[in-house]
């Protein structure tokens, strides 16, 4: 897979935005500024970036509780996202959704989802809309390794095969479902093969390798846009942080994480390869990093100062208010 320089830049910036958005968000969370739960995507950036690289606003994604990376990859602006995770009036969901329900329909981002396995049937529904209208877009469900066992996900895969829908099941195998290891919770030990047995082409790739993910997705897109039905892709990329902020991670070692950061950092791996195959330099990356840090700091600071919802907003956006 050979990508030109603007594409490489864009890919890197996308991943870098994810990294810095989450690490900065983490700082704000630990400072008590964000409510609820927050789930870090660090270590998995190449998955969302690779899966969404060739999608447009007319394609759909349905996301998970760990959704910030997906949003960024799908083109949500981080300023709007920051407002939402701060639960501000002008956030993407007016502060009613927060981190676990962030959505941006105009970008085809159908929402983070705090129900494990909730994304898959919804993505199939968007694929059904695409097919009914005769469009050539696709719909992607992001699904964690833990979520891969949920009945809803299996049902969704079967229905997508039966109706030959342009749905792509993007499995994010980050090694853990909360505190439970994938080797324990997935009885077959192989998410991709299990998906394949539902009757669709199935890929398994290194989820820390942007190029590998993007390549698998390109094949999936050709298949799905060609009217041949759904595809699944399992991307393996262990997470760097706890399940959510506050998880002390007694179930894994500091060494595992240090080793991951050293040898399987999707951004570092990308930089290396990009510098070897294009004219991008260390300095280019440093400049991109700096710009992104600045942008995200500004976004977080603005969000922190942005207006809160009005108390009466509690009652809006339901079809009907009872008293």
């Amino acid at each position, binding site marked *: 897979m050979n990508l030109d320089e603007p594409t490489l830049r864009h890919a890197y910036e996308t991943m870098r935005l994810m990294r810095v958005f989450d690490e900065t968000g983490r700082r704000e969370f630990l400072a008590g500024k964000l409510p609820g739960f927050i789930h870090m995507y660090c270590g998995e950036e190449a998955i969302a970036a690779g899966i969404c690289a060739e999608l447009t606003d007319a394609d*759909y994604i*349905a996301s998970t509780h760990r959704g910030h990376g997906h949003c960024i990859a799908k083109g949500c602006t981080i300023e709007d996202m920051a407002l939402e995770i701060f639960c501000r009036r002008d*956030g*993407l*969901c*007016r*502060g*009613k*959704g927060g981190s676990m*329900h962030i*959505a*941006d*329909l*105009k970008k085809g981002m*159908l*929402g983070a*989802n705090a*129900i494990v396995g*909730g994304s*898959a*049937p*919804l*993505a*199939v*529904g*968007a*694929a*059904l*809309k*695409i*097919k*009914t*209208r005769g469009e050539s877009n696709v*719909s992607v469900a992001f699904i964690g390794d833990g979520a891969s066992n949920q*009945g*809803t996900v299996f*049902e*969704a895969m*079967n*229905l997508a095969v*039966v*109706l030959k829908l342009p749905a792509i099941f993007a499995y994010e195998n980050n090694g853990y479902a909360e505190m439970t290891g994938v080797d324990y919770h997935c009885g077959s030990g192989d998410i991709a093969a299990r998906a394949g047995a539902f009757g669709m082409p199935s890929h398994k790739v290194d989820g820390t390798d942007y190029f590998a993910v993007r390549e698998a997705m390109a094949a999936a897109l050709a298949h799905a846009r060609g009217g041949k039905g759904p595809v699944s892709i399992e991307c393996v990329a262990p997470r760097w942080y706890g399940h959510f902020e506050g998880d002390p991670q007694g179930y894994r070692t500091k060494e595992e994480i240090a080793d991951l950061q050293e040898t399987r950092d999707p951004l570092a791996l990308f930089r290396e390869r990009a510098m070897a195959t294009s004219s991008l330099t260390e300095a280019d990356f440093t400049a991109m990093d700096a710009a992104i840090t600045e942008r995200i700091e500004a976004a977080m600071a603005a969000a922190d100062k942005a207006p809160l919802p009005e108390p009466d907003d509690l009652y*809006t*956006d*339901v*079809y*009907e208010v*009872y008293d």
Partner: protein
Amino acid sequence: MAKMTMREAINQAMRLEMARDPDVILIGEDVAGGRGCPVDDGEAAGGVMGVTAGLYSEFGAARVIDTPITESAIMGAAAGAALTGLRPIAELMFADFFGVCFDQLYNQAAKFRYMFGGQHGAPMVVRTMVGAGMGAGPQHSQAIYPIFAHIPGLKVVLPSGAYDAKGLLIQAIRDNDPVMFCEHKMLYGEEEEVPEESYQLPLGKARVVREGGDVTVVALGRMVQLAAEAAATLEKDSGLSVAVIDPRTISPLDVDTILDSVEETGRVVVVDEATPICSMASEVASMIVSDGFSSLRAPIRKVTAPHTPVPASPTLEAGYPPTAAKIREAIEAVYNYR
């Protein structure tokens, strides 16, 4: 005006709306008559109760969609399609099955509008069968709609006959939020006068089945007929004047029509086939004691199913939903209360 069964009226509502709007699709188990069989006969079934018969032949496989028996996938697919622009009608064959798929309705479809800050809702209708009377036992006979009504974001319709069913279903399909459309299986074969053309009945507007100044009866679904019967008998036998109100939609509930009547009568019976705890019967009673207390002149009597599952035995099942006799007795009790 022609006589039509409720089955036909519902079928016609779907047909009219599908003809009018290409975004309306129908999805569910065997709604297209069953696919993948030796004989490809779109008229073979049309759902187990024949309610969707003929729609497959008219609108084709792209819009009348048979599915595997996977209700979460069906409801989720409808919700996802609704969120992105279609207006699906999804069939949940028996409402009893909500337990395998409710997340996609209550946490997803029903909450989209709110949790996405108003970006979009899920304009979908879930057609589903409720109620006892066939001897089908505990898992196929429940009137489980109070659970739907509990959920903010879900509207819940409970037609008591063919005329209402048609107008309410057309309205439900055009509504921009998810609507649970609960069809009582014992009403499918019941006939009423129903216009051939399209018409809409608003959601949230009760029907005053009969006027009356002595007692107000609020009855739901199949109970409306029985309540009207009980009222007529009492009027004939004892000269009582009994108002019967059919809310038609239980969420939203037409509070005003009920309170207006209670203001006149001060005496209330609520009749519902669902089990009693946290039910619509309780909801209506509690609404009245909150907002109509000053009119109340007697305890409110709820006539409901007992707090038990629905037994299979017809002998036992006959005593399960309210009967006209039990309703009459309750009306007399509140009327005679001093």
